[in-house]
């Protein structure tokens, strides 16, 4: 009997949540079809709280206990994509100091300040890969040698492979800033052709 009550409650909540979403669909459909920025995710929908993010189950007790990313990001520097947080500036500006060790909060990251320039085909500016920003988060062994052979010219990289989640795409496009941020990597202008 108790179980049946619980089920009715869950069904009612699910129905209510479903109707809310359906109402949202309706509201979107009735908007001006020529509204500005029609396909972009508006700022008001970014970093949605867990109970309305479409992946968490709003009927789970735990969902309501989770922090909303919007709240966590409120004092962090903004960026244009991904989480809409500039994670590296957050570290540089001492707004975040994520631990390098599970228990030892005083252990510092071993940072390597070394830029690698990759000359690229076509008209895009060359890629400057900064070890500094990467070693603030990662150990050498996270990338070398499994993902990148640590030798100049030894790694074939293409945008197609990155889009498919290989090479840089192991992180970029999944958790680090996505490939739509072209100029954050393609940042070094090619020498002007003298001919």
């Amino acid at each position: 009997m108790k179980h049946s009550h619980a089920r009715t409650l869950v069904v009612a909540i699910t129905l209510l949540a479903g109707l809310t979403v359906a109402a949202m669909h309706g509201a979107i459909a009735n908007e001006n079809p020529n509204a500005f920025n029609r396909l972009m995710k508006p700022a008001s929908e970014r970093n949605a709280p867990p109970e309305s993010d479409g992946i968490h189950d709003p009927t789970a007790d735990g969902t309501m206990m989770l922090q909303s990313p919007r709240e966590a990001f409120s004092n962090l520097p903004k960026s244009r994509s991904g989480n809409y947080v500039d994670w590296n500036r957050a570290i540089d500006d001492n707004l975040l100091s994520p631990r390098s060790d599970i228990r030892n909060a005083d252990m510092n990251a071993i940072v390597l300040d070394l830029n690698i320039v990759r000359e690229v085909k076509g008209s895009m500016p060359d890629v400057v890969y900064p070890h500094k920003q990467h070693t603030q988060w990662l150990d050498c062994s996270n990338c070398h040698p499994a993902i990148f052979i640590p030798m100049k010219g030894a790694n074939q990289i293409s945008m197609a492979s990155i889009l498919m989640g290989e090479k840089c795409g192991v992180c970029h496009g999944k958790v680090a800033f996505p490939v739509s941020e072209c100029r954050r990597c393609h940042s070094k202008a090619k020498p002007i052709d003298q001919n």
Partner: protein
Amino acid sequence: MLFAAVVVVAVNSLPERAEAEYGDVVINELSDDAGMRPVVFPHWFHRIRFRCKVCHGDLGFAFKAGGNEINMVKIIDGQYCGACHDGDVAWSIENCELCHSGQPNTPTQVHHSTVQALINSVQNTEEDEEGVEE
């Protein structure tokens, strides 16, 4: 009747409106079969507190959703999530629903990832083509 309505609304509202955070990982290798909600791992929450290397180096998490054979026994024995979720560094495993909070039947994925977007667009195209044939 009511149940059918709930199912229709639930299915319609699931995939396209998912606005979960970039990098959230859904892990549903064992959960659905075990009658638990899938796990939603919030990357953003963890990278605020730990550098990537802590989990992906020290704890041995592979850079791949579903690429680690995680189960509750390993977690209780201090492996993977259990290295922190031990009631000391972070809250312990009796808080089942804090992790197992995903919509049932959500497949393992990195949410909003480029790869996921490519897979979804292929699937949508296939569905559209099937619709035309009918």
